[in-house]
């Protein structure tokens, strides 16, 4: 756990880079320090491993004031990855990854094993890459090795300063996804600096938004979007924050569970009955227990008059898998011009139903609940 207590940084020329900020980063959490350039986010991060000396206040690492620790020892317990990567060009990938293990006097076998494991974790073939030099790698590969190196001695804490900043958007997106997966496994306490709101929302468990050396808002990404504290936050997260928050929420959170269903061999009269009783125009058709087959609507039922569901139903149906973001589900709904979207699991078992109305009211709810303005209906 990292605890910052009224931390200040004043440079000799009088510039106040960080003006007394206080917050806590819980163990295993990825905390994003977010803000425009010059907001003090990098300065704050570098005070944690004392690359920049603290002027006032305290930073506690698991309860110990970091100024009471030997600075090199302190840094060896924290992975450190920066945008420029800074791989050592005269060392192989193996030697680069083993930087901190070497400082900690690990044996050669341990270092070799660690380097291989980390390359595997990064999705790089150890046999192919371990003896290469940084100049022989692509930008994305260098970035991966940089992250692997910061994980070298398995530090409990990692400091990352725009670690995916210097690569093309497609590779960056992939690296972010990979890193999230890795973080899921390794559960490090991470301080992650970025100026990119989208990256912050995607990566962060918590986001600390800074402005001119002050902490403006510290909350979960969803809350940052739903309940921006002031105008600055609102402007910073952008006018499309409704869409951004949809990217954060999963269909599972918004769907109706166990919706009313009918079977293919049911007769249409009884189906019409159900529709009138429930006051719905749309029913999902399932077969073989709970497998999604299609859907049927009121018009078709009334037009056909009698017969079986199988005669009047629509078989080719769109569905969203559980875990899909609401933004993606909404895109499908708009593209297909449907107001209802069944939610299924990986085996096509029906899990629930997402309706456009639910979606709309959910967005409204998150805003009003947290005191925000009611959203303009998304364009």
């Amino acid at each position, binding site marked *: 756990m990292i605890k910052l207590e009224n931390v200040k940084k004043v440079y000799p020329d009088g510039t106040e880079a960080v003006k007394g900020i206080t917050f806590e980063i819980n163990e295993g959490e990825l905390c994003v320090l977010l803000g425009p350039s010059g907001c003090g986010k990098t300065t704050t991060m570098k005070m944690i*491993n004392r*690359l920049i000396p603290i002027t006032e206040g305290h930073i506690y690492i698991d309860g110990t004031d970091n100024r009471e620790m030997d*600075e*090199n*020892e*302190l*840094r*060896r317990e924290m992975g*450190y*990855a*920066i945008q*420029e*990567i*800074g*791989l*050592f*060009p*005269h*060392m*192989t990938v193996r030697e680069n990854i083993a*930087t*901190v293990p070497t*400082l900690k006097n690990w044996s050669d076998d341990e270092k070799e094993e660690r380097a291989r494991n980390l390359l595997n974790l990064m999705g790089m073939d150890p046999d192919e890459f371990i003896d290469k*030099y*940084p*100049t022989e790698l692509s930008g994305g590969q260098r970035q991966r090795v*940089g992250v692997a*190196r*910061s994980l*070298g001695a398995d530090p409990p804490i990692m*400091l990352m300063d725009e670690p995916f900043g210097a690569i093309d958007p497609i590779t960056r997106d992939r690296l972010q996804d990979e890193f999230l997966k890795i973080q899921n496994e390794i559960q490090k306490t991470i301080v992650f600096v970025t100026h990119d709101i989208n990256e912050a929302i995607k990566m962060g468990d918590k986001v600390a938004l800074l402005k001119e050396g002050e902490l403006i808002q510290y909350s979960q990404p969803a809350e940052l979007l739903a309940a921006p504290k002031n105008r600055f936050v609102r402007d910073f997260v952008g006018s499309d924050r409704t869409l951004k928050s949809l990217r954060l929420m999963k269909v599972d959170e918004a769907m109706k569970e166990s919706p009313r269903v009918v079977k293919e061999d049911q007769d249409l009269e009884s189906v019409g009955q159900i529709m009138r009783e429930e006051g719905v125009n749309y029913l999902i058709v399932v077969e073989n227990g709970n497998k999604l087959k299609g859907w049927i609507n009121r018009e078709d039922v009334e037009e056909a008059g009698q017969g079986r569901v199988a005669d009047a139903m629509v078989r080719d149906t769109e569905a969203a898998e559980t875990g899909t973001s609401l933004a993606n589900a909404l895109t499908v709904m708009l593209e297909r011009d449907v107001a209802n979207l069944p939610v299924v699991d990986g085996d096509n078992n029906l899990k629930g139903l997402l309706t456009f109305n639910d979606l709309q009211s959910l967005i409204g709810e998150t805003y009003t609940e947290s005191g925000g303005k009611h959203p303009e209906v998304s364009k």
Partner: protein
Amino acid sequence: MRRRIVLVILLSIFIGVTIWITEMGSLKYMEPKTYTDIGRQAWNHLKMVGIAELLAIGVGVPLGIFVTRPGMKKFATPIVGTANVGQTIPSLAVIAIMAPILGYGFNSAIIALFVYSLLPVLRNSYAGINDIDPAIIESAKGMGMSRTQIALRIELPLARPVIMAGIRTSTVICVGTATLAVLVGGEGLGKIILTGLYTQIPLLIVQGAAPTAALAVILDTLLGGFEAAMTPRGLKKG
């Protein structure tokens, strides 16, 4: 490859010319220098260059590195600047100044040569360290390397090729400048050249100049090989 061919051709010409003149017999009113003479003076020449160069390395490399240390950067400009000025003064003038100050003799020749060889070594040592990508140093520091570890494991290996290039340039210049050392009482191949000048026998001048050139080419090649061997693999191009 092409460079190597040029070197071999040059070397053959210089050595060939030297042999040709030495074997010639009589030059106007005097005999040409013997192989023994040339050998002795070449050895003296090498000795002067060697001592001066070792001094230049001994002072230039530590000084160059010293001014890159945190807190010492303010000395960088005056120190490198002074050395630059030293280099701007013509070599003959540097050597001429030494005579009245230190008297005639081998030692003042050495000191003059040292002053003149210092700059390339100093400047390259400074630049070699100073031009390392700051991100490399920052990540080393951020991972918990001490200052000494950074210097020994990161900065020196990365700066080594640049420092070696400085030593090589300096040595080659020094071989040429050393021919002037004879003016302040030094020895070396310059003595043969000077004799040729006094007696106005051009072939005698060439007999001193050609081996000097050969010496420069040989040292340049040797140090070039050394430089390549000292360059860490990851820094080599291609």
